[in-house]
């Protein structure tokens, strides 16, 4: 039997009192795709950082192809044949593809010979692995799918035998993701070893040979993918049984709550982000907005939430609302019955250094129940926070903790609790479960559903198609600021939506 391509023995790493990795051992066979799945904060990233020389493990050994290897820095990782494709690409945006590939792996002090050799070699790599990119295009001229290929080519150019991909499909359209997995398949058949880090069960089930599950810094299991099931993996990740599907009763839409007519948004750089869109959200239904990040969904949410100005018309319960000037700010919007869970909770939803109770007060600090004469009634606010934390199962339920000390899921629960508990007519909710662990996802999804069933209107923006499909009653797809099409959620699938997300107009859109 050949030696494992990579073997970790008893890796431990602590950051202060937090044990990020605890006695982790895995062994990956060469020529396989090995998945590592786990919730946020489970320690996947720390483990990979140790493999790539960013952190030094407190304890444990790394063996590569049967020899013990020390990896003190990235250079050592590269020369050990490890290539890493980070979640956020490490590319220089205004360099060409070719320059990015040679950066750090140049042959000599002069650039030209390196570049021309790289150009030749790139061609061979492209043909060998069917990874086509234009070497003379600048990174900011090519799409994210292409940029990811550049990252893969960078690793291959450095003769990587082991390729680690960290959440590679987060920024891709479904079609691009399919392409990526075709490439990975090809690499596997050429004998490369691939480690795929993801939180998406579907990718693990479809593409990996073996899978390791991490929970709270520990490796809870390593199983052959073919012999496991999504339910089993989810349970291993969370430590309890998880409902993967949202229980959904058919919606009973009532009167229109939000009506949008010819809404346009131009950003500060003069670029039109939202182009003349029309949408209606009715009481008791969830309208999901699907799309690859950056196609105008954020701006749509922001203009509705009063964080940005726009042109056109919007009506709530038939009442027109201003889109610029007086009455178009976030405070007025709240007054008009719109609650907003912003996309980026750490920047727009919370102040990370403030206490939970202060964060629960934000936006509603003028409500009469929080006033005591001229002053804020902090005690009332704290009591209210404690009650909300209880109801939304925020852990730990301590109003005095700073927002940053909660996990992503619990932070999101705080924001959702603040907004939903105001009993709004319309809830705007962006990326409700981004960076949220499976257990909290389940809870937040249930809360959104419950709100819908109380007859509220919900506008959901998410880049996770699965989430859109499982929550929404209707799905609208945004591409380049326009609505590409609208479908009832039970009459469409990821494939059709994926095409719309890529800008391919469906018939009768």
């Amino acid at each position, binding site marked *: 039997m050949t030696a494992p391509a990579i073997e970790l023995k008893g890796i431990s790493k602590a950051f202060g009192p937090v044990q990020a990795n605890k006695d982790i051992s895995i062994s990956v066979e060469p020529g396989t795709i090995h998945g590592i799945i786990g919730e946020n904060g489970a320690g996947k990233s720390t483990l990979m950082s140790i493999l790539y020389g960013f952190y030094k493990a407190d304890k444990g050994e790394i063996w590569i192809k049967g020899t013990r290897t020390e990896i003190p*820095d990235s250079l050592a990782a590269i020369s050990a044949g490890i290539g890493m494709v980070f979640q956020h690409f490490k590319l220089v945006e205004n360099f060409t593809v070719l320059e990015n590939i040679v950066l750090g792996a140049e042959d000599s002090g002069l650039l030209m010979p390196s570049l021309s050799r790289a150009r030749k070699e790139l061609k061979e790599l492209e043909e060998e692995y069917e990874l086509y990119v234009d070497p003379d295009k600048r990174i900011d001229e090519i799409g994210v799918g292409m940029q990811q290929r550049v990252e893969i080519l960078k690793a291959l150019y450095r003769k990587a035998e082991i390729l680690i991909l960290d959440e590679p499909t987060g920024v891709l359209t479904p079609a691009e993701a399919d392409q990526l997995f075709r490439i990975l398949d090809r690499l596997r058949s050429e004998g490369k070893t691939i480690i795929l880090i993801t939180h998406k069960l579907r990718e693990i089930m479809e593409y990996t040979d073996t899978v390791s599950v991490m929970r709270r810094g520990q490796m809870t299991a390593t199983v052959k993918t073919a012999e496991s099931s999504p339910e089993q993996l989810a349970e291993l990740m969370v430590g309890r049984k998880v409902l993967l599907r949202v229980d959904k009763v058919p919606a009973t839409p009532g009167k229109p709550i939000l009506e949008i007519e010819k809404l346009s948004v131009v950003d500060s750089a003069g670029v039109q982000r939202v182009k003349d869109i029309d949408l209606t959200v009715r009481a008791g239904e969830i309208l999901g907005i699907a799309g690859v990040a950056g196609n105008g969904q954020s701006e749509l949410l922001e203009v509705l939430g009063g964080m940005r100005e726009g042109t056109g018309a919007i009506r709530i319960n038939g009442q027109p609302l201003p889109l610029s000037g007086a009455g178009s700010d976030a405070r007025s919007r709240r007054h008009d019955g719109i609650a907003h869970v912003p996309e980026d909770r750490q920047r727009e939803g919370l102040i990370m250094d403030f206490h939970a109770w202060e964060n629960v007060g934000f936006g509603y600090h003028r409500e009469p129940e929080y006033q005591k004469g001229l002053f804020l009634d902090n005690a009332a606010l704290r009591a209210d926070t404690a009650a909300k934390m209880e109801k939304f199962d925020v852990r730990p339920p301590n109003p005095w903790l700073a927002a940053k000390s909660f996990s992503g899921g619990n932070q999101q629960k705080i924001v959702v609790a603040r907004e939903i508990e105001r009993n709004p007519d319309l809830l705007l909710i962006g990326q409700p479960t981004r960076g949220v662990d499976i257990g909290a996802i389940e809870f937040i999804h249930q809360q959104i559903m419950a709100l819908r069933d109380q007859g509220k209107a919900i506008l959901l923006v998410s880049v996770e198609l699965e989430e859109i499909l499982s929550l929404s009653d209707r799905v609208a797809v945004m591409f380049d600021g326009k609505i590409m099409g609208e479908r009832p959620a039970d009459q469409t699938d990821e494939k059709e939506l994926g095409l719309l997300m890529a800008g391919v107009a469906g018939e009768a859109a």
Partner: protein
Amino acid sequence: MDFLTLIQVLDSTVRMATPLLLACLAGLFSERAGIFDIGLEGKMLMAAFFSAAVAAVTGNVWLGLLAGIGSSMLLSGLHGLASITFRGNQLISGVALNFLASGLTVLIAESWFQQGGRTPSLFTKGRFNGIELPFAIGPSEAEAADRPLSELIKEANVIQQLYSELISGHSILVYVAVLAVPLTWWILFRTRFGLRLRAVGENPAAVDTAGVSVRGLRFAAIGIAGVLCGIAGAYLATGLQAGFVKEMTSGRGYIALAALIFAKWRPWHALGACLLFGLLQAVALRFQSIQLGGVSIPVQVMDALPYILTVVILAGFVGKAIPPRAGGQPYVKER
């Protein structure tokens, strides 16, 4: 204004542009590597003092130059320590350097020379003197003909005038500054070091994950900036003038930064921008009072002109200047 006056203004432009250009290229190296360098002014000032002081004491201008470069690099090292090693705020570190240089130069000058914060005036050996290029009409020709140089120049043809007045007769540092432009371009765009340097100013994480030291590159960049600022300061005190006087850089470091933005961090454009600012300074020097439609414009306005135009140019004519993306941000390793 006759042709000869024009040539003389242009000649003075070259002299005034030289320290700007050197400082501007220093800033270019530093900022291309992602380190804002507001301390160009302080480094130049420090170099001006130490070059003048050492040249005055030893009588050797080359030792002066070395001392200037050394002192400027020392400040660069401090800046690096604060902003690279300890990841401090680069602007604050730069401002601190400027204050340090402004105070320290006068203090040391007073303690060493007791001449009211000046260094003694430098004579021939203690200065960088003009180099007469072959076939140029210079002082030696004037001596041979036993006539004033200005007369000889006046009699020469246009090409001789241009060559002798504008091209020839500058100190070696002027030629060094001009040659530094193509050299900078070549280093930035034709060498491995240049590629990495530009990369580290745009996305240090890309450099780091490629296995190259971000710290090393950034220190190298500010080291080069130190050398260039050192030459700029030495030129001020030992080339342009004969000795150090208090605050003699008079904002040149900031004008160099303005020129850098105007040039959008590109070497050849930096040359153009510095010549423009140099021209403004030369005009201000030459035409101390101008009659404009019966109104005489006071000297102060002329003196302020380069600075006013700096503001105008930066506000109105730069267009969209996109600085290196990672500029000003200390690099923290993270995933």
